[in-house]
């Protein structure tokens, strides 16, 4: 198998480019998208690579069409992806819910830009966190990953596909304009070195009759993709285990939705991922994600040099959220700071997790510039005086 970019090698590339390459290496062979700053580069890279690896990259008429095509392609058997930013992300919400309801594996990249509305198209922000988790209507769950470096953008794209296929769910890769457009060194392993997952197919005709039933006891049904003689019926209406619409019996709805939510919640241990730094004896903890976590890391190092016992919790997965982890940390420290490029979104989740065991303070920043380590340090030092 030949690849149109270096594999088993290091290259100096943008985050957007890294995401596209990782998708191809993960086996993605269908991409549908619509131009939007700062995600267009992902689309353009996919457009160059896909025809060469016998995949499809197609420009749809809008973002709604893009995610729709991705869902259709997934049911036709392909690993599929689309990428967008704020305004397009908002448009995709309905069909994202459809993908969750029909348990369709797909990867949705949101290269966050400053909003709301048209906002600051070329500048980074972290304002879509709540929307990524809750944006689509109704009760649901899904997985949200968030990289802080270009290497992580690459690695997490591979992980996003694996999680999407393993749990038959959409996975959102929540990045930002800064990571998307900065260049760093990235090592792209050869696919033979990667562990890649493809969705569970039905083992036999009997299994294919239950495309939405927990027949294996792991909350993830087998996926009888189209064209294999299974005659699968997929609908966004509430349905039973066989996929038949059953909209008026509350037990059926409860069973379906609870399983879809528990599919993610009960597998927290497998999905949740974070890094901690100097947390063991920390009195002050900064909790952060994405690009801000790097400034926070520098802030922690500088504070330690000044004799302040600071620590960092860098979240790599924003949903499912480990509320107990936050509580355990809150029990040991004197104060928690949440640094994010918005007016407070992760902050609320951390506050809920802390459960009153430690005060939580928000260090917000909007306008398109990343927190400098100095800004974080100053805020912490101000409070200590």
């Amino acid at each position, binding site marked *: 198998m030949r690849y149109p970019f270096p594999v088993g090698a*290091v*290259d*100096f590339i943008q985050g957007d480019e890294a995401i596209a390459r990782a998708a191809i290496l993960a086996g993605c062979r269908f991409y549908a998208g619509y131009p939007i700053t700062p995600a267009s580069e992902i689309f353009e890279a996919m457009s160059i690579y896909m025809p060469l690896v016998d995949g499809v990259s197609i420009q749809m008429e809008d973002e709604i069409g893009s995610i729709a095509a991705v869902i259709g392609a997934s049911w036709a058997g392909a690993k599929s992806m689309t990428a967008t930013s704020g305004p397009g992300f908002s448009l995709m919400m309905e069909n994202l819910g459809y993908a969750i309801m029909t348990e369709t594996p797909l990867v949705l990249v949101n290269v966050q830009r400053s909003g709301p509305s048209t906002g600051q198209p070329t500048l980074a922000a972290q304002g879509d966190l709540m929307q990524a988790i809750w944006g689509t209507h109704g009760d649901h769950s899904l997985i949200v990953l968030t990289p802080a470096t270009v290497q992580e953008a690459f690695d997490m794209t591979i992980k996003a596909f694996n999680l999407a296929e393993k749990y038959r769910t959409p996975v959102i890769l929540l990045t930002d304009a*800064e990571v998307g*457009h*900065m*260049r*760093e*060194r990235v090592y792209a392993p050869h696919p033979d070195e990667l562990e890649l997952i493809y969705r569970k197919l039905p083992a036999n005709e009997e299994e294919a009759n239950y495309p939405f039933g927990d027949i294996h006891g792991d909350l993830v049904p087998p996926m009888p993709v189209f064209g294999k003689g299974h005659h699968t019926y997929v609908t966004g209406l509430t349905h039973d285990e066989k996929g038949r619409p059953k909209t008026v019996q509350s037990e059926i709805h409860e069973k379906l939705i609870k399983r879809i939510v528990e599919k993610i919640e009960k597998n927290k241990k497998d999905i949740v991922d974070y890094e901690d730094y100097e947390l063991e004896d920390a009195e002050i903890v900064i909790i952060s994600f994405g*690009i801000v976590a*790097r*400034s926070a*890391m*520098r802030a922690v*190092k500088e504070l330690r040099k000044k004799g302040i016992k600071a620590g960092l919790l860098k979240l790599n997965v924003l949903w499912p959220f480990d509320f107990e982890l936050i509580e355990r940390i809150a029990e040991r420290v004197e104060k928690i700071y949440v640094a994010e490029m918005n007016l407070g979104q992760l902050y609320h989740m951390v506050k809920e997790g802390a459960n009153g065991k430690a005060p939580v303070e928000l260090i917000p920043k909007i306008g398109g*510039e*990343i927190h*400098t*380590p*100095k800004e974080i340090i100053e805020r912490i030092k101000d409070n200590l005086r």
Partner: protein
Amino acid sequence: MGWVITMQIRLAGFGGQGVILAGVILGDAAAIEGLNVIQTQDYGSQSRGGHSIADLIISKDPIYDLIVTKADVLLALAQLGYDSTKESLREGGLLIVDTELVQPDKEFTGAPFTRIAEEEVGLALTVNMVALGYLVAKTNVVKKESVEEAIRRRVPKGTEEINLKAFRIGYEEGTK
């Protein structure tokens, strides 16, 4: 100027001068040498004529600062670029300018890069490579050979030779 653990470099000019390509090439050269490097850019919406800034942070250590706050080196190829970035040069930092296009208000070094590109290289468009050569000679941030390899990888097919020529002429100028 010698090597330090971390170097912040800012290249500034106007859109069309190839400032960002120069930044990418310099970053690629650092990457080739196994150094840690982050390269970012900023530009106005016009394809031509607005300001154009390429930032690099190059380090032997893992990089946590992402923003050029105090540039160790500022390269300005146009007055417009200089005016919008001069505050970011740190005290004692190295200012390199195109001496015919920029009137700096602090200590500087440089050469008439645009004229050199026009007259000695034969293509004004290669001003970015001339200036890059000069910068690399003056700072030793990366090896000459690394930049040449990066140039071969990054410039449009068929223009490798002329870009290398421009780089070498600028480098020569920087060693004087």
